[in-house]
C-alpha cells in the first residue's frame, strides 16, 4: 500500500490529538510542556508533508520557524516552571491558580 | 555515493528491497564495530603507555610484549566482573543507558571518509548529522545518572550535561567557519576543498574546536564528571562489568570519532602523499589523539564555575568573532588565497591575547601572559618528559633504595645488644611494645617481645630511647596482611627477619648507606 499525503496528515492529527489530550489532562507542568512539544512536532510533520507533496519548500521553512519558536517556548516555559517551583514548591497546575481573581 | 549505497545497489539486483536495506546495515555495523574495537584498544594502549611516558613512569608493560595485551586483559577482567544494579535505581534505564551512550559515537563513523571513495554513506548534510547525532550521547549520560539512584551520579550527570551543552555552541560555531570556506556540509567535499589544510586557514577555529571537543569528550582538563575527589566516579559510579565496559568503550569511540572529525575538518582528512588515504587518515587521527592525552597529562582540572565561564565568556565570543571574520573574508577574498594564512594567524594570535585580557572567570581576570605561558610551559615540560628515562622501576625485580633515614615498617632488633631495660616500652606513646624479662647470668634476658604494628605510629621514640643501640627502624616497606593478628610481631620473627636497618637516629650509619633511587636517579647524580 502506497503511502500518500493523507497518511502523514492523519499521523500528524493523531499525534496532535495525543498531545492535546496530554496538555489538557496532565497536572505536572513539565509534562504539559512535553505534550505541547508533541503538538508542535505534529504540526511540523504536516508542514513537511505538504512541502513534500506540494513541491514547495515553504512548508519546510515554516517547520524551521516552528522549531525556533518551540525552542524559545520551551526555554521560557521551563524557566517559568522552575521559578514557580522555587517559590511554591509545586509544579501542579491545579495548585498554581494564585492569579485567579 | 558511499560504500553502503554501492553495496545496497549491488544487492538490490538479487534480493528483495527490505533485505537489501537491512543486510548492508548489519554488515556495516559489524565491520565498523570490530574496526572500532581494534582502534579503541590501540588507543587505550597508546594512551596508558603515553601518559606514563609524559609523567616519567613506565605505564602498563606486563601483559604481553611491552604490555601490548593490557587492553585485552582489562577487557576480560571487566567483562567477567559481577554486574551490579542498585536496588534504588531504575533497572531498565540502567540497562539501556550505556547502549544509548555508545550508539551515537558509533553512528558518527557512518559519514567519516577514510578515503576518496571509502565512506559508508556520503550524505550531503554530513557534518550536521555528526553534530545532531553526537548530541544524543547526553541522553545516555542522563539516563545513567538517573537510573543509578545515587546522588553523586545524578550530580555528575547534571554537570556533564551542562558542560556538554555549553561547549556544543562554540564547537558548532567554529565548524561554521570551515563550512563557509568549503561551502558544503558534506564531509567528502570538505576534505576535497582542503588544498590548504583548514588548520592553517582557520587557526582560531581549530583551537576553539579542539578545546571544545576536548570538553565534549570530558577529557582533562574538562573531566569534571569524574572528579573523583568530589563525586566518586561520576555518572558511572554504579556501573560494573559489561555495562561499565560499554561506557568505557563509548568514551574511547567518541575520542576516536572526534579525532577523526578534527583530522577531516582541519587536517585535510585522507589527503597526503605516497601512503594510502586510509593510512593517512589514521596517522592524523593518532596524532590528534596523542595531542589530546598530552594535554590530559599536563593540565589540571578546571573548577565547575571556571568551566562554564570559560565556555560562555571565552570560547563563545571568540567563536562568534571567528565566524564574522571568516564571513567577511569570504566576501572580500572569495577564493581564500594562501596570503590569508598569515592574516588569519595574526588575527588568531591577536584575538586570543586581547580577549583573554577582557573577561573574568570566577572573579579572576584571565591573563594570557599568565595562563597562556603557563600552559605552554607545562606542555613543553611534559613533552620533554617524553624523552626522559622513567623514574619508576620494575618493582618486584628492581627495588627502590629508600632515603637513608627512611622509617620503614618492622623494627630491626639486635638480640645480643638488648639488655632488657624496657626503655623502649616506656617511651612508646601508644604502648604497643610488650616486653618481659627474667634474670639471666649477665643481666636480664628478654623472654617475650611483642609489638603490634597495626597501631604503630612510626614515631621512632623507641629507637631514640634505646640506650644500647639494639633497636633500629627498618628500610622495608612491603609488609601487608589481611589479618590483624599477623601484624603483631613476636620475638622469633624479629630474630628471623632480614636485618636492613635504617639510618634513622643513627647518624654514623648514614655514611655507609647507598643513595636514594626514587626521584634522583643515579645517572643525573653522577
Amino acid at each position, binding site marked *: 500500500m502506497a503511502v500518500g499525503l493523507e497518511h502523514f496528515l492523519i499521523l500528524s492529527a493523531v499525534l496532535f490529538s495525543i498531545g492535546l489530550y496530554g496538555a489538557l489532562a496532565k497536572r505536572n507542568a513539565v509534562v504539559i510542556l512535553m505534550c505541547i512539544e508533541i503538538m508542535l512536532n505534529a504540526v511540523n510533520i504536516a508542514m513537511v508533508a505538504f512541502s513534500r507533496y506540494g513541491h514547495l519548500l515553504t512548508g519546510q521553512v515554516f517547520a524551521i520557524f516552528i522549531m525556533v519558536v518551540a525552542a524559545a517556548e520551551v526555554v521560557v516555559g521551563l524557566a517559568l516552571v522552575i521559578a514557580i517551583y522555587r517559590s511554591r514548591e509545586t509544579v501542579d*497546575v491545579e495548585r498554581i491558580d494564585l492569579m*485567579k481573581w | 555515493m558511499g560504500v553502503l549505497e554501492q553495496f545496497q545497489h549491488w544487492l538490490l539486483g538479487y534480493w528483495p528491497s527490505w533485505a537489501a536495506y537491512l543486510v548492508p546495515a548489519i554488515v556495516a555495523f559489524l565491520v565498523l564495530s570490530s574496526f572500532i574495537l581494534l582502534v579503541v584498544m590501540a588507543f587505550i594502549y597508546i594512551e596508558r603507555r603515553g601518559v606514563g611516558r609524559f609523567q616519567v613512569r613506565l605505564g602498563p608493560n606486563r601483559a604481553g610484549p611491552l604490555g601490548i595485551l593490557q587492553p585485552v586483559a582489562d577487557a576480560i577482567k571487566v567483562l567477567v566482573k559481577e554486574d551490579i544494579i542498585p536496588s534504588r535505581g531504575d533497572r531498565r534505564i540502567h540497562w539501556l543507558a550505556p547502549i544509548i551512550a555508545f550508539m551515537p559515537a558509533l553512528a558518527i563513523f557512518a559519514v567519516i571518509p577514510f578515503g576518496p571513495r571509502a565512506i559508508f554513506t556520503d550524505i550531503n548534510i554530513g557534518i550536521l548529522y555528526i553534530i545532531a547525532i553526537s548530541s544524543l550521547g547526553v541522553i545516555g549520560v542522563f539516563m545513567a545518572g538517573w537510573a543509578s539512584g545515587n546522588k553523586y551520579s545524578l550530580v555528575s550527570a547534571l554537570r556533564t550535561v551542562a558542560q556538554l551543552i555549553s561547549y556544543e555552541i562554540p564547537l558548532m560555531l567554529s565548524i561554521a567557519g570551515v563550512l563557509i570556506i568549503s561551502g558544503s556540509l558534506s564531509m567528502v567535499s570538505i576534505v576535497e576543498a582542503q588544498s590548504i589544510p583548514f588548520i592553517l586557514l582557520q587557526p582560531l577555529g581549530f583551537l576553539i574546536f579542539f578545546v571544545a571537543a576536548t570538553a565534549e569528550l570530558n577529557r582533562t582538563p574538562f573531566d569534571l564528571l569524574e572528579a573523583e575527589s568530589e563525586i566518586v566516579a561520576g555518572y558511572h559510579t554504579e556501573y560494573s562489568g559489561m555495562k561499565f565496559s560499554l561506557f568505557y568503550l563509548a568514551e574511547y569511540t567518541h575520542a576516536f570519532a572526534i579525532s577523526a572529525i578534527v583530522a577531516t575538518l582541519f587536517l585535510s582528512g585522507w589527503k597526503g602523499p605516497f601512503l594510502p588515504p586510509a593510512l593517512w587518515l589514521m596517522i592524523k587521527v593518532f596524532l590528534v589523539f596523542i595531542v589530546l592525552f598530552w594535554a590530559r597529562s599536563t593540565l589540571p582540572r578546571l573548577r565547575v564555575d571556571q568551566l562554564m565561564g570559560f565556555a560562555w565568556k571565552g570560547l563563545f565570543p571568540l567563536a562568534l568573532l571567528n565566524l564574522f571574520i571568516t564571513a567577511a573574508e569570504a566576501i572580500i577574498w572569495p577564493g581564500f588565497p594562501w596570503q590569508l594564512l598569515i592574516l588569519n594567524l595574526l588575527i588568531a594570535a591577536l584575538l586570543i591575547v586581547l580577549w583573554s585580557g577582557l573577561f573574568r572567570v570566577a572573579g579572576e581576570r584571565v591573563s594570557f601572559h599568565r595562563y597562556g605561558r603557563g600552559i605552554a610551559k607545562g606542555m613543553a615540560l611534559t613533552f620533554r618528559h617524553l624523552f626522559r628515562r622513567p623514574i619508576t622501576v620494575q618493582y618486584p625485580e628492581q627495588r627502590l633504595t629508600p632515603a637513608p633515614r627512611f622509617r620503614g615498617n618492622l623494627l630491626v632488633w639486635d638480640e645480643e645488644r638488648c639488655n632488657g631495660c624496657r626503655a623502649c616500652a616506656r617511651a612508646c606513646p601508644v604502648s604497643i611494645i610488650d616486653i618481659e624479662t627474667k634474670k639471666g647470668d649477665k643481666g636480664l634476658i628478654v623472654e617475650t617481645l611483642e609489638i603490634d604494628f597495626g597501631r604503630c605510629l612510626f614515631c621512632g621514640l623507641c629507637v631514640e630511647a634505646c640506650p644500647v643501640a639494639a633497636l633500629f627502624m627498618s628500610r622495608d616497606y612491603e609488609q601487608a596482611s589481611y589479618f590483624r593478628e599477623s601484624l603483631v610481631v613476636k620475638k622469633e620473627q624479629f630474630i628471623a627477619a632480614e636485618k636492613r636497618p635504617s639510618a634513622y637516629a643513627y647518624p654514623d650509619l648514614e655514611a655507609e648507606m647507598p643513595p636514594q633511587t626514587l626521584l634522583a636517579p643515579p645517572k643525573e647524580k653522577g
Partner: protein
Amino acid sequence: MPEVALAIFLLPIFSFVVISLIIRPFLNKRPQLSWYVTIASIGASLILSLWMLVEVIKAPGHVLPMPDYQWLVIGDTSIHLGVMADSLAAVMLIVVTVVSLVVQIYSRGYMHGDPGYCRYFAFMSLFTGSMLGLVLADNLLFLFVFWELVGLCSYLLIGFWFHRPEAARAATKAFIVTRIGDFGFLAAILFLYAKTGTFDIGELQHLALVGAIGGTALTWAAIGIFSGAVGKSAQFPLHTWLPDAMEGPTPVSALIHAATMVAAGVFLVARLFPMIASSYEAIMTVAIIGGFTAIFAATMGMVMNDFKRILAYSTISQLGYMMLGLGVVGVGVARGAVALEVGLALGVAVGIFHLFNHAFFKALLFFGAGSASHATGTFDIREMGGLRKAMPWTFATFLIGSLSIVGIWPLAGFWGKEQILSQAWHYAPILFYLAMITVFMTAFYMFRLLFLAFGGEYRGGAHVSLRESPAVMIVPMVLLAILSVVSGWLPISEFLGGESHSFFGALASPMAWASLLLAALGILLAYAIYSKKWISAESMRRRFAPLYTIVSRKYWFDELYENVFVVRILVDGIFALFHWFDDHIVDGMVNGIAGGTIAAGREIRRLQTGQLQAYGLAIFIGILAIIAFFMIFG
C-alpha cells in the same frame, strides 16, 4: 531689520535658557558666570534699543515698517505675529533696558553670596526678555503671552526667598490679584476677536476710530482691557498686592514693582489709547480710577513705617497719576474738546513721559532703600535714622530722587507732573484738585521718610556698624540720580507727539508755582514734625485717631477681600455649592458605575478559575464549535 528687533527681546530669553540649562546645573560652582551672561545680553539689548530709537526718530511718522510672520493657521483664521516699532515702543525699550541694566549691575552687590544667585539672574533675564517682548508686541495675543510671562516672573521673584512664609504668601497674593485683572483682559481680547476676527493692535485701533466697533461693546472691551491694566498697575481696587510684593529682593522691587512691570498697565492703556479713548465711559473710568488711586495711595503712604511699603504706595500713587494723565486727555478727546489726532498723541505723551521719568527716580529711590537696609539690616524706618552721616552717597542720591518725585523744578519729576496737572485742569477740574492734594501728600510722605531714615540720630541696635554700600551699588545709584535730574529735559514728550516745554518757560505758569508751593508746604510740614519736632507726631496721631486708624489699616481692604469676598462669597457660597455637587452628583455617578462594575465582576470572575487547562479546554471547545459551525452551515 525685523531680526534685530526680535533679537532685542530674544537675547535676554536666550540668557535665561543658558543660565537655567547650562550654568545652574553644570557650573553652579561659578555663579558669577550667570551675572556676566545677563549683563552681556541686556547690554546688547540696550545697544540694539538705542539703535532702534535712532532709526525710529529718522523714520517718517516715527514708525518703522516691520514685516509680520504667520504663526499658526486655524481653519480660515491665521494668526500673525509681528513687532511694532513706533515711538512708544522705542521709548519703552529704552526705559526697560536702561533700568534693567542698572538694576542688574546693582544686583551683583545686593545679591552677593545668595544661594539662589543663578536662579535670580535667570528669572531677571526672563523678566527682561518678556517685558521687552511685551513692549514690542503688535498683537494682543502675543502681548498677552508676554503679559502673563512678566506676571509669572513677578510671582517667582516676589517669592524668591520662598522659605519665608510672608514671601510665599505675598507671591501668591500678587499672582491671584493680578489674575483677576487679567481675566478681564483675556475676556476683552476674546470678545474683541469674536467681534472683529483679529488680534492685531493697529487694526483694532483703526476699527475703533472709524467706528466699526463702538457703543457698549467697545466700552466693555475697553473696560476689560483696563481691568488688566488695573491689576498689573495696582490701581484701586486691585492695589493690595503691590505693598506686599515688597517681600522680594529690593532690586526686584526697583525693576519690576516700580519701574517696568507695574508700568505695563499704563503702557497697555497707552498702546490701546485710541481704542479706549473712543469710549467716553471707559476713558472716564480710567481718569477717575487714576485720580482716585493717586490720592488714595498717598494717604496710606503717609502713615506707613516700612521703607519699601512707603515707596510702594508712592508707586501706586504715581501710577495713578499716569492713568490720570492718560485719562484726562482721553476725556478731552472723547468730549471733542481737542482734535482727535493731536489728542491721541498728546494723551500717550503725557502718560508715558511721566512713566519715563518715574522709572528712573523710583528705581533710584528703591536703590536707596536697598542700600539703607543693606547697612541697617531692616526696612523699618523707626529703627533707622542718622544715615546721612554714615552713607553720604546714598543720602545724596536719595535726596535727588525725593526732590524729583515731589516735582521740584528742574528735576525730572517736575515736567511730567506739570503736564498731567495742566491737562487735568483743562478737562477735569475735580480730578485736578485731587491731584494737587496728592502733590502735597507726596511731598509730605517722601520727606517724612527722608527725615526719619536719614536725619537725626541712629535708633537701631548698637551692634550694627553703619557703612556705605560697595561701589557696585553706589555707581548705579549715581547713574540713576543723574538720569533723575536730566531725563525730564529730554524731548521725549515731543517725540511722542505731545507738547514741548521750555526749561524756564515752565515757571511762567501759575499752576507750576501752585504745585511747587504745595510741595514746599508738604516738605515743611514733614520738617516740622519729623526733623525739628515742633509738632509732636504722637499728638497729631491722637488728634486724628479715627482717620489714622482707617489709613494705617489700609482702609481694611485686605480684610474686606479676605473675609468678605474669599470666605463669605467664594468659600461659603460658590465653593460650597460646587462641593455639594461634587459630593453627590459627580461622586454618586462615579461610585455608581464603579459599584456596578464591581458587582458585575464579582459574578463574572467565577469563570476565571486560574487554571491553565480550563482555559485551554475552552479554547479548543471554541475551535471545535467554529469548525462545527462551518461544517453545518458553511
